[in-house]
């Protein structure tokens, strides 16, 4: 067997690996940061719901020959507002609202796929991700949008923290919780739809959940939790891509398994520390 280190060095010479690492890391960081807020508010499945819903706009765009993200982003934002509306105004539990919107998206996407059988291969790529096929333009767009997401989280950090800890108290002290919740779901929508390219519709919510739950095993302060989640996200993306390259595995699924390994390690560390 060839030595591993030279193979890793060789891997990073390839442009497609470099683009994958850059795009994946930035998406991973956004997912990790938002994930800490979403997991603590028990909203982490909103990522799953929005990803599944995006099957419909992506299918629609592929059928019409439009770049899928141009349709998926605005439709995803509408879907996220729909989820918030159902949960807040229609006396529906949040998980039921997410399930409803996600099912409509998947059903519509499947119908479109059956109507236009020619684009099934493309749709498969969105279902399971194809980070190694990220283009230079997509990579640059991902980095730019990630900066926007992270800047908005930074500007709204105190509101997001206060609402995550005690939403009712946040309302009492005059914070605009409705607007902050809308900002959170819009940012989540952007991040999830960009994340679809990395790990696919089926696995994108894992980028939101795993780094956050990994960090929450070990952190006592909120900023530390975000920092740990970011480190876990970057490490899992880079290691996942490298392992996928070395062992000829699907990159998206490998990233998820590495994330799971990090979670197991953090869980064991927490258990051992307690003992």
């Amino acid at each position, binding site marked *: 067997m060839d030595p591993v280190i030279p193979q890793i060095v060789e891997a990073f010479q390839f442009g497609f690996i470099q683009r994958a690492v850059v795009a994946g890391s930035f998406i991973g960081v956004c997912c990790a940061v938002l994930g800490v807020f979403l997991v*603590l508010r028990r909203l982490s499945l909103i990522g799953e719901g929005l990803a599944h819903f995006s099957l419909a706009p992506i299918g629609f765009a592929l059928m019409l020959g439009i770049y899928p993200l141009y349709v998926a982003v605005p439709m995803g934002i509408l879907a996220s507002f729909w989820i918030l509306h159902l949960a807040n105004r229609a006396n529906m539990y949040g998980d039921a609202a997410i399930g409803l919107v996600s099912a409509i998206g998947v059903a519509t996407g499947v119908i479109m796929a059956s109507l236009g059988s020619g684009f099934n291969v493309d749709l498969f790529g969105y279902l399971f991700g194809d980070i190694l096929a990220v283009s230079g333009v997509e990579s640059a767009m991902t980095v730019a949008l990630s900066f926007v997401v992270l800047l908005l989280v930074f*500007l709204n950090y105190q509101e997001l*923290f206060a609402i995550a*800890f005690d939403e*009712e*108290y*946040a309302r009492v002290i005059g*914070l605009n919780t409705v607007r902050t919740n809308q900002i959170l779901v819009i940012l989540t929508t952007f991040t999830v739809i960009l994340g679809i390219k990395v790990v696919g519709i089926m696995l994108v919510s894992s980028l939101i959940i795993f780094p956050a739950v990994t960090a*929450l095993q070990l952190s*006592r302060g909120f900023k530390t939790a975000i920092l740990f989640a970011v480190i876990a996200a970057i490490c899992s993306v880079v290691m996942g891509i490298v392992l996928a390259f070395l062992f000829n595995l699907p990159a998206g699924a490998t990233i998820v398994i590495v994330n799971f390994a990090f979670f197991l390690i953090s869980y064991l560390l927490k258990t051992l520390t307690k003992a």
Partner: protein
Amino acid sequence: MSIISVKNLSVKMSNSTVLSDVSFEVASGEYIGIVGPNGSGKSTLIRSLLRLNDIECGRIEIMGKPLAHFSDWSKIGYLPQATIVANKSFPASVGEVVATGLLGCKSFPRRFNATDRDAVLQTLENLGIEHLYQEQVGKLSGGQSQRVFLARAMVSNPDILILDEPTAALDPVTRDHFYQTIASLNKDQKKTVLLITHDSATIGRYAGKLLYLDRKVVFFGNFKEFCLSGDMSHYFGDFAQHLICHQH
């Protein structure tokens, strides 16, 4: 001039009347104990003052402004009923949680500075819990948690303190200590206090006035009047009223 004015307030929830035609006024610096049986509308009244539920009709004014136009929420410190952190592993330190009480005074983008950190530390010190500053909030005992949430309510130096059953989960010693702390805030710092409790006898020792609710105002006056009130004798029965007032 009254700091809180409630006129003809009625609140319905799921088509049932929770509060009916409630009127009362609170002067600046008063200490009001809001008492009444379960389901009497005590928490609904407080939540209506804080815009946490819709009102059917009536008028609420805070510091002379109608509720809809009142915006200076940092002048109100609120201690909610549930002060035990539900998610014990929530990664927040006491310092981070208490600092959220300052967010109402800040404009976007809200950032804390050294003065805010000093205010948090000073408030913790005033309540004798400065050593908890870096502790994870979910790991605190019931009494410690109660004081941390009181610190969050106090940190913006509010004029009005609204406390919703603050002693429900406390042991008798901690409860008495808590009541003394509130009494001292009212007496020494002239804070206006509205405190909900089931315990008419204990609050009678501390509050200047009692507001007895049972979906409507049954009694509003001081504890002596409460004990001598024929209406309350009729409401409780002579023996029960004697037991409440005897503890006094």
